[in-house]
């Protein structure tokens, strides 16, 4: 097995025992990138020289027997909406094409303090708006399992880079499913933490009351290890929670005896793929066999979640994107006066989906009844979850109603583009944590993902159930046969 194919915890062991160096691991990752990146397009920026320099400095620390953190020397890819000092941070948008961040996001600071090695920035839907990564202003990312299919989105680059072994770890962000849905479609593990668990300082905002950063990894243990590094209070993010951070690896217990699992009836809908439904139901059956108590539950407002999300996300986006005016940074269109400069800059700098959401959001803001109604229904969606979590430890659902669709298939229909998010947006509205883990493959060989949801700050329950399932199946060990054959 090549080094780039290993998980972070496997690499950690090898580095700790002195059997491999961080430089060797980093080199193997870049060799893989050179070989397959042309077919996948996971990255918008690569930082090879900086990465190798950083890797050598970690190796130096190890030689000098300095104390190192558990993930020291492990290569990581970062979604291009998180700021790294001195590195391009584009949000896959023309308006930020040349923006080099003058500071580090808090998650980046934490990763640096733990000596992780940054290998590059990953492609995404422009400003994270989309579910297929087709809205990137720069390139189309391909699903490693089928190069003609989308990788999901908006963290499509981060999910694809993990699935194709171009990186060991990755970070994504999730506003309505943007970590979980691409993880599901690429057959990897994606965790959206509780809102407030991870600092958003330095994450370029899309919809501030919904956005959350989280890990995209090859297995559940790596997810727990990365959560240990990125979680915690940050005085620079007024919505981050001052709530103790456990050692998440302690929840990696392969035992679900007595765990109460709810299966929401509303998450098995008409129009969903039969193979997806079967894989998820088989997974629930397995967990029951392993000793979990399974019960059908009801989340009656689920069918209203998507419309609620659609209004709230657009309204917040229209304010969060008011920053981009061509004054202090980013693209500026030449104009005769200031007002024309704003308008021309935003016309030329933003893509179609971004404009559509700004337009919808601005309209909704000027018709306040819409917004108020959405906020009220948000309460109802949240109360549905509060009620079921009184009797269940977690919920299990499909992550996405279908496997990956073909590139270009849904681009022209704005409402249909939201459909892949129907099972993921409720968690963002309610602020609860959720994970997607691989639970099977379709006959055509596309991955299927299983979503586990729990109450706020119950990431430990999620990790325990996810780990138990993973240890008893092994779907996560499958890798696409890209590239050598295609």
């Amino acid at each position, binding site marked *: 097995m090549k080094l780039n194919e290993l998980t972070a915890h496997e690499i950690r062991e090898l580095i700790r025992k002195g059997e491999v160096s961080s430089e060797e691991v980093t080199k193997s990752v870049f060799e893989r990138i050179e070989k397959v990146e042309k077919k996948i397009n996971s990255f918008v920026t690569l930082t090879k020289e900086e990465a190798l320099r950083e890797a050598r400095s970690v190796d130096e620390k190890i030689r000098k027997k300095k104390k190192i953190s558990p993930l020291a020397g492990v290569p990581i890819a970062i979604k291009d909406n998180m700021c790294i000092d001195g590195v391009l941070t584009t949000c896959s948008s023309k308006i930020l094409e040349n923006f080099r961040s*003058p500071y580090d996001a808090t998650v980046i600071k934490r990763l640096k303090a733990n000596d992780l090695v940054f290998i590059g920035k990953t492609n995404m839907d422009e400003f994270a708006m989309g579910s297929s990564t087709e809205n990137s202003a720069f390139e189309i990312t391909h699903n490693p399992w089928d190069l003609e299919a989308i990788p999901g989105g908006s963290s499509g680059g981060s999910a694809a880079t993990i699935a194709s072994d171009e990186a060991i770890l990755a970070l994504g962000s999730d506003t309505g499913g943007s970590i979980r849905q691409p993880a599901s479609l690429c057959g990897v593990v994606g965790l959206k933490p509780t809102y407030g668990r991870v600092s958003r300082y330095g994450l370029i905002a899309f919809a501030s009351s919904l956005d959350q950063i989280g890990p995209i990894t090859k297995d559940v243990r790596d997810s727990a290890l990365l959560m240990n590094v990125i979680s915690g209070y940050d005085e620079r993010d007024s919505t981050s929670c001052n709530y103790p951070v456990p050692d998440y690896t302690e929840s990696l217990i392969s035992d679900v005896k007595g765990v109460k699992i709810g299966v929401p009836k509303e998450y098995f809908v008409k129009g969903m793929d039969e193979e997806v439904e079967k894989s998820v139901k088989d997974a629930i059956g397995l967990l029951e066999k392993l000793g979990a108590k399974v019960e059908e539950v009801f989340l009656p407002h689920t069918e209203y979640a998507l419309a609620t999300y659609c209004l709230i996300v657009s309204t917040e986006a229209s304010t969060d994107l008011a920053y981009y005016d061509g004054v202090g940074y980013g693209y500026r269109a030449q104009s005769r006066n*200031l007002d024309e*400069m704003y308008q021309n800059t935003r016309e030329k700098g933003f893509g179609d989906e971004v404009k559509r959401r700004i337009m919808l959001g601005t309209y909704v803001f000027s018709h306040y009844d819409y917004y108020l*109604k959405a*906020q*009220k229904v948000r309460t109802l969606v949240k109360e549905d979850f509060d009620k079921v979590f009184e009797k269940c430890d977690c919920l299990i659902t499909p992550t996405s109603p279908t496997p990956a669709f073909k590139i270009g298939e849904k681009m022209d229909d704005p409402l249909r583009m939201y459909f892949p998010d129907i099972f993921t947006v409720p968690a963002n509205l309610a602020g609860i944590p959720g994970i997607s883990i691989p639970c099977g493959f379709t006959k055509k060989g596309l991955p299927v993902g299983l979503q586990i949801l729990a109450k706020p700050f119950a990431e430990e329950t999620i990790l325990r159930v996810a780990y138990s399932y993973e240890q008893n199946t092994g779907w996560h060990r499958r890798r696409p046969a890209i590239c050598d054959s295609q």
Partner: protein
Amino acid sequence: MKISKKDVEYVAKLAKLKLSEKEKEKFTKQLDQILKYVDKLNELDTEKVKPTSHVLPLKNVFREDKVGKSLEVEKVLENAPEKARGFFKVPKIID
């Protein structure tokens, strides 16, 4: 129709977005579609429901009012499309 081309022009002005004629027509149609879809929410009686603007029970966060470290002006201006004497430079404001 829930929305007209005139509404779209007004909203574009508020959002400081210049739109082509083609975009105006497209957005009129698409926003109309979306607004018809979200009308679904009116099936629910929410008169007694409190709105949620935020999921966490957070209150205003205060900190001591002391001078901290800011980003360096030079470094920030490196990203500026145009600059002059330590400031951002923009086209004239009044014609």
